[in-house]
């Protein structure tokens, strides 16, 4: 289960809409022990593509430092799918950098955004519930 604050949810979805027509991405930070994300770091997508994303490395570094300064750490990544389901693609699975992370997908295909979270471990995808707190 992944717990998100309302603020993290809103900031994440807002950043995804702001990124249209391209894929947007960002990082979430929090307490890995409780799986609660209290920090949202919208980042640049240096791939600048509607089909793939790459988190700007320097944005990643700064987010990591900021989370650490607050006694927290980065616990996952989010990105948008502009025209497809909120489900990890083959690329998402192949590129997943950390098996302890939470992988959030924000689909903007329909009128309302669809947000889902997954764990990706050894190529296996497992959806997890999201709880807004």
């Amino acid at each position, binding site marked *: 289960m992944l717990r998100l604050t309302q603020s993290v949810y809103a900031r994440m979805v807002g950043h995804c809409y702001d990124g249209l027509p391209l*894929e947007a991405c960002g*990082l979430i930070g929090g307490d890995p022990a409780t799986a609660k994300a209290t920090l949202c770091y919208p980042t640049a997508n240096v791939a600048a*593509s509607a*089909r793939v*994303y790459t*988190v700007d*490395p320097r944005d990643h570094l700064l987010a990591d430092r900021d989370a650490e300064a607050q006694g927290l750490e980065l616990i996952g990544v989010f990105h948008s799918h502009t025209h497809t389901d909120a489900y990890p693609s083959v690329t998402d699975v192949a*590129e*997943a950098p*950390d098996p302890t992370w939470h992988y959030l997908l924000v689909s903007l295909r329909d009128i309302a955004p669809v947000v889902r979270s997954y764990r990706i471990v050894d190529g296996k995808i497992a959806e997890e519930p999201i709880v807004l707190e």
Partner: protein
Amino acid sequence: MSIDVRLPNILRPATGGRATVQADGGTVGEVFADLVRQFPDLKLQVLAEDGGLHRHLNVFLNDDDIRYLGKLDAKVNDADTITLMPAVAGG
């Protein structure tokens, strides 16, 4: 000279769980060589087969991406910190 090398969670099992280790060298490449000498399990995760940087790894010398500093030839000084970050990408 001995400098701090900070590692992401995903690489810490190779260092016995340590988030920061010290390694010696005058360039980033030399520091990496000492790093993998100390922690052989890191080698395949930080270096490519040709001895260059692993493509899924971003490396910072202080605040700067080493891609813009000469990559493994970038010189290091006392009090510098090297930070390793996994590349985060998908689609």
